[in-house]
């Protein structure tokens, strides 16, 4: 049994080191996207079921009540803390919010549904899953292991790191503003993340901007629009 425990520790070391070396660049980009969403007034909504529901609760308290004195409290709500199960992303989520779906396995249907729902509402989506998973999200992080407890431990490091490093971007406020996406010389393609009174909120590379859609007729969330100078020119 002692050997078995030693093996489990070695396996944790191997998977965590490999995972972080592979994903460090995308983790940094995810932190930047989260920091911008918080700067826009977004709320973090972490979701998981079963054991992953405890991670969702952990993430909420991490952001709401920072363990490091002096870090600002950031808004976060775990719908699974509601025993009536009536809190859903449909009622809570707005386009500026961040959905963080957690599964210790390849895929969990409730987590996938949560992320799809969040994406349809224009939220920034981040997914944490185990080996074999291919979650639909803006930033998906797959831990290459099928040991659910090991996956959970790597994911705990991931969400701690997301929390720690979101604060690094708050120390560089110049990096939090949404630059003009459509102000360049050429038109750009961007995805519609929300509709607001005759305009569309578009997103490209994590940046967001409101554009007029009078020239393109009916627009739906998820449409790809060719835009220039604050105006959508055509659907792609």
């Amino acid at each position, binding site marked *: *049994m*002692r050997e*078995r*425990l*030693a093996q*489990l*520790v070695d396996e*944790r*070391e191997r998977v*965590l*080191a490999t*995972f*972080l*070396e592979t994903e*460090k*660049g995308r*983790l*940094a*980009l995810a*932190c*930047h996207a989260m920091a911008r969403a918080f700067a826009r007034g977004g709320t973090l909504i972490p979701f998981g079921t*079963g*054991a992953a529901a*405890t*991670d969702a*609760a*952990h993430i909420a*308290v*991490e952001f709401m*009540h920072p*363990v*490091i004195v002096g870090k600002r409290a950031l808004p976060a709500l775990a719908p699974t803390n509601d025993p009536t199960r009536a809190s859903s992303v449909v009622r809570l989520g707005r386009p500026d919010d961040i959905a963080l779906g957690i599964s210790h396995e390849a895929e969990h249907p409730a987590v996938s549904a949560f992320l799809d729902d969040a994406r349809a509402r224009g939220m920034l989506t981040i997914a944490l899953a185990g080996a074999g998973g291919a979650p639909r999200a803006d930033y998906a992080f797959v831990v290459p292991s099928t040991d659910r*407890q*090991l996956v*959970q*431990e790597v994911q*705990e*490091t991931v969400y*701690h*790191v997301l*929390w*720690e*490093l979101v604060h*690094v*971007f708050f120390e*560089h406020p*110049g*990096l939090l503003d949404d630059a003009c996406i459509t102000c360049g010389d050429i038109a750009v393609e961007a995805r519609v993340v929300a509709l607001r009174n005759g305009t569309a909120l578009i997103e490209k590379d994590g940046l967001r901007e409101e554009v007029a859609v009078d020239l393109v007729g009916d627009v739906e969330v998820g449409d790809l629009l060719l835009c220039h100078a604050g105006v959508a020119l055509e659907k792609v």
Partner: protein
Amino acid sequence: VTEFLYPFLERQETDLESVLADVSSSTVRKGADVIELRRQINLDAVLACGEAIRARLGRGGRLIAFGNGGSSTDAQDVVGDCLARGWPAIALTNDAATITAVGNDVGYDKVFARQLIPLARAEDVALAISTSGSSPNVIAGLEEAHRRHLLTCAITGYDGGRLRELPWLDHLFVAPSDYIPRLQEAHATVYHLLLEAIGDRP
């Protein structure tokens, strides 16, 4: 030319690249820190504690776990894993009504002790999780558990805090770090290894 026209734009891009690079490399360092903490887990102590817990559970005892904040979610997690292995287990922090009632009427320092008074049986196991090792309600909960002859186990960080000063504490695991995110990640490994040592209910 663009630098002359838009010096700020250029500077911002450079800043972003360097901040992203800093953030990436610090991610890898954080991983190395928790790996080091995991290597320091005393596996013989994990085995001894796992066997002692299993003996209690085998006699009809239950695992009762508690902690504050992130550690309260660890308590919920270890209890869920224990139930999945077929053993009875209770997470005191699942009961928001009792915790807020006792916190409001008596004081937050008394929440876990007050819950243990009616719930605990002598054959049970108390598992306390505290990053500082000094949370008054966690210490009071363990004292109550000890008075009621439960097996007392604790997982903590820093230098062990006040938990080190409890001579009757049966099992203590310290992740020797003063940085909560990393020591908490090592805590998850400690209780996952404990569950492995406890094994499934036959």
